[in-house]
């Protein structure tokens, strides 16, 4: 096995050593229940609240507006089902065609129950059709808007500050799935962005899997999702997952520094070098808007060859990436995001996503740039279309 070059950080990230260190005492020694009345358990309450304060400082909100959940998907489900339940059966849900399945599937489930759902289209470069959005906001009745801040596949950003303001002006409740945006852009600041709810997940920002957050602005109409306990101010029952909450607090503390200390531009420079190098391979195209894009994400298509085959060859070179091809999804259809962008079908099956993090270095980029031309050449020689 060659050295590992991990370029799949939009899938999950390496837990930061500092985060793991912060968590360990809560497995080994301080494993009490935060709701206890004795010091052994009750003292960990302070660590939970300390973590909550760190998350709140990172998001620019009040600590009591932070609800700890088990993952980003739970946060999305909570926001969508909880709000529609609170708004009543006449509510309309406005979302987009390129959301993560954690938003698409709840919206489809609501649609089957008779709730009207508007699926907003995107342009060819993956940016939001703002005219369609404004038209949808003009519809009568109570509304929930749920749209992603950054796309997990292409990294394309939606103008969430503007979209949230438009929703507020139209009297709609606004939720954003910011799972891919948090920690990767500056400006995820709830003091400035008038969003009512925001979801994100710990494991995309170097905390472990199994912890997520739903920010709920005070006064937002949303029903509790898990019943059965007083935890999280009654919004989400379940004994607090103390080690993971503490780990997430540490991860947010680190991310808060990182969005301002130049790390993001270093990541963007690496990504741009990777992009420039891959574009030297004939016929390569970048999917998505080049400007309104996360600094860490690159989605490229190599026409006439297929993504899974590329990933297996990359794996031999120690490179971890992902693809929007049908064969990698376990379904027979390629990426719904690229299809919504009306990407040419030569691009659909041959797309690769490289996503970087603070731990990505020049050697990782070089590994891809060394391996990729040969892989494309080999597979194109195999392909009936690849002269």
């Amino acid at each position: 096995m060659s050295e590992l070059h991990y370029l799949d950080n939009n899938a999950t990230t390496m837990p930061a050593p500092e985060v793991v260190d912060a968590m360990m005492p809560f497995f080994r020694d301080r494993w009490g229940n935060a709701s206890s009345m004795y010091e052994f358990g009750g003292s960990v309450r302070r660590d939970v609240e300390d973590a909550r304060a760190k998350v709140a400082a990172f998001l620019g909100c009040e600590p009591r507006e932070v609800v700890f959940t088990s993952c980003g998907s739970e946060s999305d489900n909570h926001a969508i089902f909880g709000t529609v339940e609170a708004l009543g059966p006449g509510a309309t849900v406005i979302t987009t065609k390129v959301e993560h399945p954690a938003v698409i599937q709840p919206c489809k489930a609501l649609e089957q129950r008779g709730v009207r759902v508007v699926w907003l289209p995107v342009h060819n470069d993956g940016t939001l059709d703002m005219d369609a959005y404004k038209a949808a906001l003009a519809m009568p009745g109570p509304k929930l808007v749920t749209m992603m801040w950054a796309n997990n596949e292409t990294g394309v950003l939606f103008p969430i500050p503007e979209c949230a303001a438009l929703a507020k002006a139209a009297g709609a409740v606004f939720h954003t799935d910011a799972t891919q945006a948090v920690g990767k852009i500056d400006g995820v600041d709830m003091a400035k962005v008038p969003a009512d709810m925001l979801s994100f997940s710990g494991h995309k920002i170097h905390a472990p899997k199994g912890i997520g957050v739903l920010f709920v602005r005070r006064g937002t109409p949303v029903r509790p999702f898990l019943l059965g306990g007083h935890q999280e101010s009654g919004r989400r029952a379940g004994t607090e997952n103390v080690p993971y909450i503490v780990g997430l607090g540490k991860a947010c503390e680190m991310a808060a520094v990182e969005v301002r200390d130049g790390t993001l531009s270093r990541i963007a420079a690496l990504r741009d070098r990777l992009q420039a190098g891959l574009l030297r391979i004939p016929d390569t195209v970048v999917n998505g808007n080049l400007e309104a894009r996360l600094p860490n994400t690159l989605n490229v298509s190599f026409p006439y060859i297929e993504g899974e085959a590329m990933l297996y060859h990359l794996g031999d070179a120690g490179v971890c990436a992902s693809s929007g091809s049908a064969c990698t999804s376990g379904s027979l259809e390629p990426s719904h995001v690229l299809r919504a962008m009306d990407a040419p079908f030569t691009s659909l099956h041959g797309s690769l996503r490289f996503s970087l993090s603070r731990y990505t270095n020049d050697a990782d980029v070089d590994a891809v740039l060394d391996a990729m031309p040969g892989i494309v050449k080999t597979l194109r020689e195999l392909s009936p279309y690849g002269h």
Partner: protein
Amino acid sequence: MWDYSEKVLDHFHHPRNVGTIENPDGVGEVGALACGDALKLMFKLGPDGRIADVKFQTFGCASAIASSSALTEMIKGMTLEEAAKVTNADIAKYLDGLPEQKMHCSVMGMEALEAAIANYKTGDTTVRELKDDPLVCTCFNVHESEIVEAIRINKLTTVEQVTNYTKAGGACGKCKGAIQAILDRELGRPAADSPAAKASSAPASFADLSPAKKVLAVEKALEKLVRPALAVDGGDVELVDVQGGRVQIRFLGHCAHCMAAHLTQDGLVQAKLREELGAPDLVVETVQ
């Protein structure tokens, strides 16, 4: 990550017989760039009538490449009669198995071989004799005979299996009812419709049609009478389901956000379907 056998990975990393042959005796091409996989297979016969040389080109995933490579190794030296008996199950067995969701890769190999042999015999480049062979899956262009063949060779019993083996039904899912009807017939299950559906010579009334035939009839009417009218305004419609006399549709394009879509639903879609299908009680509903 797929659980590929050592043999699949070996044939993927070291594909045998890649390329083309000058003046081949038979060429078979199946799949398409748009579908995500395609295979071009060609062979040349020796003086003894056996396959002396065989080459392939594949666009597709690791298991598609491995299936093609394995097929070429298997048929080299065979007579065409022997080669014609090679099935997708043989290809999968040669590779020590394929993941269930990847069985369509082995079917693609079998179909390319069939096409190449047919090409040798008839000089025809069309893949199959398509007369009386209805197109079932429009997304992946799968005909009824291909589904029947996959069911018989691999003893399939569910729609999901048919999708894994042929890709039919794997995209929009509109044809799942039709696939179920084919399965019911192949497995000798009492179909909900029976006699009326089989009496295709006389124009049966809409209510007597099998679910699959209803879907096909509605789809045909939509294509002929409704879509051209909607296209004028940049709209479109897709068929979601047919349950008895209830037809569920979904508007697309401009119609999807049109405030007057319910007028189109009743005044155009329902009216045209009732007229074309001779079903005055037919009801059209919009979903989503």
